[in-house]
């Protein structure tokens, strides 16, 4: 029990709220940039969302012949085929666009034809490790369901937080979470990671993680508000964030380490999932401190009031240091 690391000193007094003059414009700028790249570059939607065919091939020999596969698959006449190495020189990933046809039914037939032809062409030299064909009907619904999922999820959380906290907290948490979702989408665009069904799971997980983190900070702000009724709101928030800082850092670090293992060793299929999660952990932690907390000030959360007798009289055994600091 002798050796213990303290990552964060016990009595930190970072004036976090002073950063809001920086963090708000910075986050706003990043959000605007996301919107711009979203429209300028566009999300690299996977076939789950735009339909099409995805095939992962593994060479039966020692190495895949990427140029030959590219040439042969493009010659099949199914539009341009995107061929890329996937994880190792033996594996290739082929992506084909949704086939065009006058009716949905014909489109689906054409899609099936693509797979048949590909198997005929490459079946001898390559093993088909993965084949995914998504038709036009399914992909449209996925976009819709995904969006509905995020919205319903946020509304559910909003309602729950309204019950447990004051409304300013609920709004603040939702804004911080939306901020994280927007920036994560921006991350997907900038890194050109494929956005598929699993990415939707990432977004919702980040939503969960970010909320979790925000609620921990909020919980403490609420507690400190009851304790120090005469202090300015920003002072109370600073005390709350500083007292949860050690937890915030340790949790973010452990989760980050766990996801880092996933990103490095979890295999190619989970790569974009874990990369986005890593980003989400960082951004979720940042937003709890620099967005969710200071926004309470702008939302006009009231301090003190109520019971003047208890004003600033710390509870039995409460930290004298903290009280002294607060009064200073």
């Amino acid at each position, binding site marked *: 029990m002798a050796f213990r690391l303290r990552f964060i000193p016990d009595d930190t007094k970072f004036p976090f709220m002073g950063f809001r003059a920086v963090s708000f414009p910075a986050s706003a700028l990043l959000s605007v940039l996301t919107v711009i790249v979203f429209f300028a570059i566009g999300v690299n939607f996977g076939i789950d969302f735009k339909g099409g065919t995805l095939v992962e091939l593994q060479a039966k020999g020692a190495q895949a012949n990427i140029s030959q596969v590219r040439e042969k698959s493009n010659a099949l006449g199914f539009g341009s085929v995107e061929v890329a190495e996937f994880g190792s020189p033996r594996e290739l990933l082929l992506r084909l666009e949704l086939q065009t046809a006058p009716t949905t039914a014909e489109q689906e037939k054409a899609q099936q034809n693509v797979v048949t032809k590909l198997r005929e062409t490459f079946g001898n030299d390559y093993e088909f490790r993965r084949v995914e064909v998504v038709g036009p*009907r399914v992909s449209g619904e996925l976009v819709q*369901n995904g969006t509905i999922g995020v919205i319903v999820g946020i509304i559910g959380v909003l309602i729950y937080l309204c019950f447990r906290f004051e409304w300013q907290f609920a709004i603040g948490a939702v804004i911080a979470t939306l901020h994280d979702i927007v920036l994560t989408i921006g991350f997907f665009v900038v890194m050109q990671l494929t956005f598929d069904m699993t990415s939707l799971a990432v977004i919702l997980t980040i939503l969960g993680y970010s909320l979790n983190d925000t609620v921990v900070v909020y919980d403490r702000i609420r507690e400190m508000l009851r304790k120090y009724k005469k202090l300015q709101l920003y002072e109370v928030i600073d005390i709350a964030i500083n007292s949860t800082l050690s937890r915030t850092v340790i949790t973010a670090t452990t989760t980050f380490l766990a996801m880092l293992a996933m990103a490095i060793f*979890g295999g190619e299929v989970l790569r974009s999932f874990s990369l986005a999660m890593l980003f989400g952990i960082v951004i979720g932690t940042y937003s709890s401190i620099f967005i969710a907390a200071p926004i309470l000030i702008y939302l006009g959360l009231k301090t003190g009031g109520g019971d003047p007798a208890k004003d600033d009289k710390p509870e039995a055994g409460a930290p004298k240091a903290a009280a002294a600091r607060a009064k200073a």
Partner: protein
Amino acid sequence: MMRISRIKSILIILASLLGCLLAVPSLMPETTRKAVFGSLPAWVPQKAVSLGLDLQGGAHVLLEIDKPDLIRSMNTQLRDDVRRVMREERVALQGGIAMQPRGVQFRIPQADDRARALPKLRLLAQPAGQQLFGPTGTQTIDLVEAPDGQITMTYSDLGLNERIRRVGQQTIEVIEKRINIDGTKEPSIQRQGLDRILVQVPGLTDPQQLKERLGRTAKLQFRFVAEAGAADTEQMRNRDSGQLVAVERSVIVEGEDLIDAQASFDQRTGQPIVNFRFNIRGSQRFGDATTRGVGRQLAIVLDNEVISAPVVQTPITGGSGQISGQFSVEQVNSLSLLLRAGALPAKLAIIEERTVGAGLGADSIRAGLLASYLAMALVAVFMIVTYGFFGVVAVIAVTINVFMLLGLLAVIGATLTLPGIAGIVLTVGMAVDANVLIYERVREEARMGRSAISALDAGFERALSTIVDANLTTLIAAIVLFFLGSGPVRGFAVTLSLGILTTVFTAFTLSRLMIATWYRWRRPSKVVI
């Protein structure tokens, strides 16, 4: 918070043990599992977490009932029914029967004709939606009569949906027969929504044959080729020659009257053929028709294509016959299989297909497991470095947490997918967070000068309310994910939700019990954390 009654302690330990025991089957390779659990009584839980198709390899095909085609055939049927009523009641129509998008329209100019025909026409409609909610007052077909004698019959939404539901049920039955004929794989066939059917076959890596089996309607009909000048005929393509043939609309016998179909070879030519046998009704009709029609051409129609049109030499009354055409051995095999399983009640479209080879699945498991072990090791080292003895307690709690999660997944029969593994790793992160919240709080309370017991008490109590709030918000998001996601995402949501539950459970009970026990044993006056 640090006083836990003996009964509670025992319950906590039992619950944790049980959770871990449930995970045991999942941790064994299949062969070991069979050897160990095969000898145990049946009440011992021996279910292992089933692996998703992305981990064990297999084919996933999502089918959708072709609605326009179904409506078209419903319309045709309605038109034939109306025509029959008109014939039976000797009613003359003005003009023909016009097809509407979802029904038919025709005109009966004479008022007394209308009076006779309408009650009969109304009989064609049935009350809709009765099974679930009692009579709804809605009919499967709405009948509207205009003053000038124009009658419009339209399928109502309820009527259409009910039909789709029924067709879906029949489709599943037929698909089951078609796939289970091999008897080797364990396919799962599930309804998804109103008009979709998901077929999953573990271990199948080339679903070409499966898709062919699922995609064919296999509707077999015997009709006469129309004689010159005959009315009520339709043009059909001949499968071999590609030429159009005029065929009578009336059907002699259909595939549903078949009781058997076998692939065989023609004894004279050696060509692959399908031998079939009719049931009593089928053989009677077939016998009658071939007696009447000696010398005529009989068209054997499969999915609106004439596959052969032999001339009837003698009446065929024995109830059996053969289908010949230019078939390969493979084709007659699959045709006889399809005929045995029966025709699909409607066309199906393949709208999604996902296949994962066994190799990729195994690689994914290997990578996923390696990453999970590493993640846990990293987290364990970090926690022990940070919290010392308490870190060890946290690692034990988190490990048991993961076992319990696996056990729960096995018990509810959940499927572990690749994103599910990521969900477990995330659970590790969250479970650690619960412990961190507790320890940091205890640390703070101790720093205020509280005694060990008071710091532990206050620390646990305050941290637990935070843990509940934080985890409940995440749980809400996970539940929404479950209801709106599909496939792998659902698996992820299940893992995450259960992970949150086990996390809150272990934080409330196990971590507390371990620390309380330690406190009773050491009785420290101060907590060093």
